[in-house]
C-alpha cells in the first residue's frame, strides 16, 4: 500500500505552540494545590502515625512492648524493632499538616542540608515540590520524590531525629553496606487489609548520612536492590 503521501502529511509541532501549552499546563499545576496535597498527604499521615505508634509501643506501654517485641537492634544508628504484630492499633493519632514547598525553599528553612543522590535510574525526574513534616519534639522530616512514566515514585525521606527508630516486620530486616557503612534493607510493610506484615512489593533502605537518616522507598519491580544501593551510594 503506497501511503507515503499520507505519512508526509504529518508535521512537527511548532516549538512556540508547544512551549506555550507546556507553560499553560504548568500554570494549571500551580493552581491546583488541593490535588497536589491529596497526593502527598497520605504519606505524611503515615509517617506521623508511625512515629506515634512507635512512641506508644516502645515508650508508653513497656508491657505491650515486652509482649510483642521480637527483635530490637541498631543498624547504622537507627533503632529497629522487628515484630510480628502491630501494637499501635489503639494508640492515639494526631494529624500534623504537611508543608509543601520547593526544594530551594526547604533547603533555606531546614536546619540540615538536603543532599540528593547524584544518580537515579534512567527516566526518573526530580519533582518540583517537597513535603515537610515538623513534629513537636523538634524532629523534622522532608519527603523528596522522583517520578518516572509508568513507574511508582522513588521516594527519599530525610529525618533529623537524634534517636531514629522504626518498626518493621518480623525477620524482614537485612543489614548491608552502603559506601562501607552499615545500612538496613527492609522489604514490604504493614498491610492494613490483611492486618499483617506483607511483602507489598516495596523496598525500603535506611541509610545514615551525615547527621540524618536517609530513607529510600521504591517499588521492587521498578528498582532493584543493586540500583537502590547505587542510588544511596551516590549521595554526596
Amino acid at each position, binding site marked *: 500500500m503506497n501511503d507515503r*503521501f499520507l505519512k508526509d502529511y504529518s508535521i512537527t509541532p*511548532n516549538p512556540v505552540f508547544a512551549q506555550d501549552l507546556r507553560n499553560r499546563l504548568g500554570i494549571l499545576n500551580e493552581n491546583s494545590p488541593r490535588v497536589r496535597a491529596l497526593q502527598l498527604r497520605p504519606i505524611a499521615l503515615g509517617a506521623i502515625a508511625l512515629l506515634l505508634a512507635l512512641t506508644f509501643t516502645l515508650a508508653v506501654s513497656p508491657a505491650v512492648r515486652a509482649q510483642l517485641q521480637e527483635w530490637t537492634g541498631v543498624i547504622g544508628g537507627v533503632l529497629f524493632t522487628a515484630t510480628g504484630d502491630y501494637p499501635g492499633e489503639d494508640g492515639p493519632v494526631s494529624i500534623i499538616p504537611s508543608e509543601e514547598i520547593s526544594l530551594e525553599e526547604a533547603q533555606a528553612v531546614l536546619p540540615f542540608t538536603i543532599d540528593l543522590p547524584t544518580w537515579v535510574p534512567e527516566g526518573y525526574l526530580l519533582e518540583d515540590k517537597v513535603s515537610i513534616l515538623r513534629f513537636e519534639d523538634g524532629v523534622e522530616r522532608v519527603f523528596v520524590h522522583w*517520578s518516572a512514566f509508568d513507574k511508582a515514585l522513588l521516594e527519599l525521606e530525610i529525618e533529623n531525629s537524634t534517636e531514629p527508630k522504626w518498626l518493621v516486620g518480623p525477620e524482614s530486616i537485612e543489614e548491608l553496606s552502603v559506601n562501607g557503612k552499615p545500612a538496613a534493607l527492609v522489604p514490604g510493610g504493614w498491610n492494613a487489609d490483611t492486618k499483617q506484615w506483607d511483602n507489598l512489593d516495596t523496598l525500603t533502605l535506611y541509610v545514615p548520612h551525615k547527621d540524618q537518616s536517609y530513607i529510600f522507598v521504591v517499588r521492587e519491580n521498578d528498582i532493584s536492590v543493586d540500583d537502590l544501593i547505587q542510588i544511596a551510594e551516590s549521595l554526596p
Partner: protein
Amino acid sequence: MITQIERIKQFLGHEKAIHWDTVFATELPRVLNYFRFHGLDTPVAEDLTASTFEKAWRTRQSYQKEKAQVSTWLFTIAHHTMIDYFRSRRNELSLEAVEDWPDRLVGSSPEESAQLSDDKECLRKILWQLPERERELVALKYGAQMTNRAIAEQTGLTETNIGTILNRVVTILRKQMEDRK
C-alpha cells in the same frame, strides 16, 4: 489507625501518576496530527490539541492505569474534543455546500492556504470530506501513528476490518489526489 502501611499503600498508589513531561513530549505530535488528519488546518488543530491536554490535565486524577494506557485515555479525550468541535458547527455545516466546507469552517485564509503546498492543501480538503468513520481511522493510523491493534482497542472494530477499510480509503485518497492534480 493509620500506620506505615498506609504510607506504603499510598506510595504504591502513586504508580497511577502520569509523568507529564514524558506524555507531553511523546503525545503532543500525535494528538496534533490526529486533528490535522481530520482535515483541520494547523491553527484549529493546535487549539483542539491544547484543549485535549488541558482536559486531560484537569481530569488526570480519574485516569486509571489498570483500565487503559495513557495514550488510549488521551485519544479518547481527543476524540470527544473532535466530536464536540464538529457538533458545535453542525448548523453552520448544514448551510454550506460541501466543496466550501474546508476553507469556510477551518479558518484557512487565502494567505494560509498559499503557504501550504498544493498537495497538502488538496489532501486536507479530501480528508475533510471523508465519512466520519474513515476519517477517524486515517487520523488514528497516520496522525496518531497507532498500530491496527491499538486502533482496534480504541474503536472496537476488528484489526481485519480496520486493515480492509484503511486499504480501501488510502487507495481512494491516492486516486483523488492524482485526479485533482
